[in-house]
């Protein structure tokens, strides 16, 4: 007979109950996965010992008819990029949640070394294997990292915190979540990249005060301002440019190199293969020049265009001159964020640099000049985002010994509002509002006898509807007929700790209500995700069943352990019959635990959770009431 194990309250009874959670930096040029090992956040290497995974996926023609096309990912794909640019997808992060028209408007389209077409919900890449959604490419990268982590721990992953640029809007965030779902990853949180870096820094260095994080990645640029005090990370303001990154420096440099060699025209006008080769050479030279101490020292540039060999010496001073405008754009964004937070550069105690592109000396100099102090570079700028994400993953996985001492208070990066008469946007949630939040505003009808109201939810900083991103539309019907302006309709925007938005509208006199969970129209539909999942290499059915059972058992054990420790600590809050009811649910769950039936066990766990709701409410109210009574709540 199996004996039930009972452990100390608040402690995980056995290591299998520990949830394995990782942080993933899904980057434009490369991606990383990190996790906590022996209390320290570390990047997990692949079998060859490399922590970077180039964010590149190559599709090869099918070896035979009716065979599915094969794929290469990471380093292998990167090597093939110059010889097969059309089928090698890089910088896919720039395409996430974007239509082809968006990409054209922002100038990204003409700079990509592959063909972009209109796809389902967003742009797609045309390859030998058909049109591929950016979500699928990101899912492949995430699945590879998930596999790496599972191999590393020899255990199932509970979930991941995935980082995104602070400036990503809802469509881009949703696309990232869709990719994770496709990769079989549970998303614990999408965390803003600069915030992740600040977490890693703050917890590693025990920093205090006002910090700015300057994050220039391959394709995105973010700035965040945080205040760190006694383990609380408060995001004050965040901003940036979702269409500016290290890639842009490569392109500006490539154009300058062509000009230097007397070639008329831009890199973007070259055929795909030549363009890819030129960009690769520009990048290689950029990195080499940035490692030189002397800005005037030259290195040879060589390329072949239309069968004609180009050659010239080039210095870092020339690289700096060709990219000054880009660096100025980053400083302008920096200024805006500080203005938003009403902070002067002198008040900032430290500047953290994130992203490989911040290795450029001219950029470092510009940042140092703006703040009047040299930036901090103690942690590897390429790894710091993943390291921070791993720390938050550990906290959100709810492992007993994790995240005890600290808390991240994040903000919403973009304003949210409603369309009003005349195509104007009425802002309801200003950007940089602390999460979670609920904000309400009253509206009224504009015609006599109007019984319905159309609500259009928008995201962005501009005043005109056409300049903002449409997130959702819904209607409030059944308003009693009144004269124009008499109805009072309260519209409330709810944002949870994930920044997920729901909107409700309520007419005050009649109480009619309407409600919508916002899932942006740019994301993929659930059907599209399901179809992709079917097409993908879904695990064998048996595998799935075993996995489901293991997950159900882990969840069941955790819930049971949490309940027992709550009973031990606060059992006094319950009447004897209430306590008996909870004990009965615990015993029922323990019996079903022995049956190896995942669905039944999930039901029993859910029943236990529901049975404990009132108890949980009393416990939390008491702890807050104690705090309200003026006790020192740092003890909690």
């Amino acid at each position: 007979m199996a004996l039930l194990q009972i452990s100390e309250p608040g402690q995980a009874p056995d290591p299998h109950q520990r949830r394995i959670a990782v942080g993933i930096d899904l980057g434009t040029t490369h991606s990383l996965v990190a996790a906590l090992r022996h209390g320290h956040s570390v990047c997990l290497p692949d079998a060859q010992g490399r922590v970077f995974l180039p964010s590149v996926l190559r599709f090869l023609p099918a070896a035979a008819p009716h065979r599915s096309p094969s794929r290469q990912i990471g380093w292998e794909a990167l090597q093939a990029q110059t010889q097969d640019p059309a089928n090698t997808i890089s910088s896919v992060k720039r395409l996430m949640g974007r239509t082809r028209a968006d990409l054209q408007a922002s100038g990204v389209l003409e700079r990509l070394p592959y063909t972009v077409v209109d796809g389902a919900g967003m742009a797609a890449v045309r390859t030998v294997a058909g049109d591929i959604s950016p979500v699928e490419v990101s899912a492949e990268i995430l699945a590879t990292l998930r596999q790496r982590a599972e191999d590393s721990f020899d255990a199932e992953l509970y979930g991941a915190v995935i980082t995104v640029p602070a400036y990503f809007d809802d469509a881009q965030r949703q696309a990232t979540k869709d990719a994770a779902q496709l990769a079989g990853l549970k998303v614990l949180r999408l965390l803003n990249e600069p915030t992740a870096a600040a977490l890693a820094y703050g917890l590693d260095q025990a920093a205090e005060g006002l910090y700015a994080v300057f994050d220039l990645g391959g394709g995105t640029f973010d700035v965040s301002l945080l205040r760190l005090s006694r383990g609380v990370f408060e995001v004050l303001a965040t901003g940036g440019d979702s269409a500016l990154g290290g890639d842009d420096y490569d392109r500006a440099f490539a154009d300058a190199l062509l000009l230097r060699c007397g070639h008329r025209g831009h890199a973007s006008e070259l055929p795909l293969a030549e363009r890819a080769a030129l960009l690769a050479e520009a990048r290689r030279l950029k990195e080499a020049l940035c490692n030189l101490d002397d800005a005037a020292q030259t290195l040879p540039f060589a390329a072949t265009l239309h069968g004609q060999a180009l050659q010239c010496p080039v210095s870092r001073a020339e690289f700096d001159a060709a990219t000054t405008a880009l660096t100025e754009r980053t400083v302008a964004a920096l200024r805006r964020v500080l203005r938003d937070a009403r902070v002067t550069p002198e008040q900032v105690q430290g500047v953290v640099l994130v992203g490989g592109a911040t290795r450029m000396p001219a950029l470092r100099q510009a940042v140092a000049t703006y703040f009047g102090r040299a930036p901090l570079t103690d942690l590897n700028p390429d790894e710091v985002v993943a390291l921070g994400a791993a720390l938050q993953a550990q906290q959100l996985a709810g492992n007993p010994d994790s995240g005890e001492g600290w808390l991240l208070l994040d903000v919403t990066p973009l304003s949210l509002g409603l369309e009003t008469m005349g195509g104007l946007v009425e802002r309801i949630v200003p950007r940089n509002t602390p999460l979670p939040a609920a904000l309400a505003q009253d509206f009224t009808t504009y015609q006599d006898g109007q019984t319905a109201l159309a609500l259009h939810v928008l995201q962005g900083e501009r005043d005109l509807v056409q300049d903002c991103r449409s997130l959702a539309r819904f209607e409030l019907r059944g308003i009693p007929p009144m004269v124009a302006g008499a109805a009072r309709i309260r519209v409330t925007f709810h944002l949870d700790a994930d920044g997920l938005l729901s909107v409700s509208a309520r007419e005050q006199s009649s109480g009619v209500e309407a409600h919508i969970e916002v899932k942006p129209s740019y994301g993929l539909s659930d059907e599209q995700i399901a179809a992709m999942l079917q097409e993908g290499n879904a695990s064998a059915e048996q595998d799935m069943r075993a996995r489901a059972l293991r997950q159900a058992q882990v969840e069941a054990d955790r819930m049971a352990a949490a309940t027992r420790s709550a009973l031990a600590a606060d059992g006094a809050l319950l009447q004897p019959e209430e306590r008996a009811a909870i004990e009965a649910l615990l015993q029922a769950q323990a019996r079903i635990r022995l049956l190896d039936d995942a669905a039944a066990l999930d039901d029993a766990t859910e029943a236990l959770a529901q049975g404990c709701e009132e108890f949980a409410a009393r416990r939390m109210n008491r702890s807050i009431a104690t705090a309200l009574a003026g006790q020192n709540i740092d003890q909690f």
Partner: protein
Amino acid sequence: MGVLPEAGAVPAGAGEASGAAALGDEISLRADDYTLFALPPGFALDRAALEQRWKQLQRLAHPDRHAAQGAAAQRLALQWSVRINEAYQRLKDPLKRGAYWCELQGQSVGAHDNTAMPATFLVQQMQWREALAEAGSAADLSPLQAELEAERAQRLAALQTAIDVQHDARAAAQQVRALLFIERFEQQLHERLDRY
């Protein structure tokens, strides 16, 4: 079936101190902002105490701190965390705080309830609007900007007197309405400055 107008909503009464409605039945969730933050009701405020209290309360209530405790605890934590942020945002901003104090005394500041402003202030508004319309450069706007700043500072001081010394909600509500106008007008001015 009724035909909807092309666009939906007309804003009524901007700047209202309306927050999320009832979040729960617990007495403590319904405590007013000042009680929640253990601060004396009024206009003058210890900013450092507000910040510290906010962080203390969020440390206690934020859903991320309850990740191990199941869905019920998460939902409750979310309600608390939202309520704490709502009160924090309202107390932090002098105008919202002033308006909230008035509402606690039963004096609404909603523009739709009472648009009456003293005639002298209406004349001043017209003069400012003209000055903004006639300005041709950023330099032209700096006297106007200075005047607005001075007016703002003076009215904030008057608001503090009305609340903390005279306990006069009607007078305070009038100052809040005037300050709301100045805030909106300054925003227009900044938008203009951004264009130069």
